[in-house]
């Protein structure tokens, strides 16, 4: 597979795909041969052609970030085939909501303490678990749910 016209070894993508790594290979800068698993994961989840198309649509200076985000999402999907990286988003969003509630309650407590010199109230109880009627308990920010999905959610009652 190697060529005498250039000295660099084939990138991880071309090695994986068992093809000649051309000088203008779009994968070469972002999938070095020392990281074979990175491309393997991305290829398994997204496919080389999809990744190639995505990279072509992104400016050159942002391609490394795009590849790294794809690699992250691919690895997350491999570890959690059901939720992938969306699981992390759901958990973080819940944490934001909880923190915001606690902050609001504590601010109110502080205000009461500062101006009324009343003893501070106890911190608010943790939020209740998701209601039984909810599909999965997953919180999707920037929800792009289809209306049909909402009907499926209410009836399926999936779990997290």
């Amino acid at each position: 597979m190697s060529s005498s016209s250039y000295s660099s070894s084939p990138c991880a993508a071309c090695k994986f795909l068992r093809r000649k790594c051309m000088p203008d290979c779009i994968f070469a800068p972002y999938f070095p041969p020392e990281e074979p698993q990175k491309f393997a994961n991305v290829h398994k989840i997204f496919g080389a052609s999809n990744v190639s198309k995505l990279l072509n649509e992104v400016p050159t200076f942002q391609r490394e970030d795009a590849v790294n985000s794809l690699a992250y999402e691919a690895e997350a999907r491999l570890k959690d085939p059901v939720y992938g990286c969306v699981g992390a988003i759901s958990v973080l969003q819940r944490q934001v909501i909880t923190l915001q509630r606690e902050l609001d309650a504590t601010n109110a407590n502080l205000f009461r303490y500062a101006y009324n010199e009343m003893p501070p109230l106890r911190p608010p109880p943790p939020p209740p678990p998701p209601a039984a009627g909810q599909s999965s308990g997953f919180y999707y920010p920037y929800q792009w749910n289809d209306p049909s999905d909402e009907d499926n959610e209410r009836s399926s009652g999936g779990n997290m």
Partner: protein
Amino acid sequence: MTLKSGTTSACAACKYQRRKCIPECLLAPYFPADQTKVFQNAHKLFGVSNIVKILKSLDPSQHAEAMRSIKYQANVRDKFPVYGCLGVIRQLYYQIQLLEEEFHSVLSQLEMYRQYHHEVPSQLELGMAPPTNGLNFLTAVSDMPVSMQHSYSNSNNIGYCSSYVDSKDHNNNNNNSNSNSNNNNNNNSLWIQHPFLATNNSSSSNSNENNPLMAIQSQLLVSNMQPLVKQHEVVQDYDELHPFFDTIDDRQSFIHSKEPYDSSCEDSAKETTQAIELVPNNELKNAAACFSLTSVH
């Protein structure tokens, strides 16, 4: 293409592929015919064969949730072609850090008030005059260091998904993390690494040199995270986060988008987005610098 019976139309997936939509079509329940854009996003990112592969590897009871996450991920990637879901995660992480810092600050003020409340009666007993204005005390307290009160840090362990916890990956990436010294994430945290080192496009890949493993690790108990101010050397590669919050995309505005998959929950999303837009630009760059990728085998 419709079925011979003519009672149901082909799903968006089969329509796109110009094939007959059979009753056993795996994708038909999740890509109705009127949501071609959603399917196109999913097809663009994953491809039909990869989606089917994922579904076939799962129990049928998990298909709905898996498809939901796949569609969400694809739609986010359509909105944010460069960072995708990772950008959303960073955004949330930054938001959490801001909230925690503010929370610690308020807690420390509250603690000061509590102490003051206890001290004043004893001072009165000794014949000492209390301060005349509680507001002055509040002002003085606000000048105290924020790092005083950390009782919150471990008190609210939400049941975080620990799907990504991998002690091997974590150990390998300890060298690159600025905030993994106080490691609380073994059991209850996802792993998204706080210091963003590896994705400095043109600057360096020093973290990758040390750790060829590729992962994103995190401490969701972000009280252990260092303030973002130390990442001043963030290069302009992360300018994308500024338009990320202003335009919410590389090339288009999220807020003004009228994509068919915008839901009725857009208002809540807008609130989150607008709240984040208030963050100064340099802080966004610093926030971006605080996330890093280290490679994993």
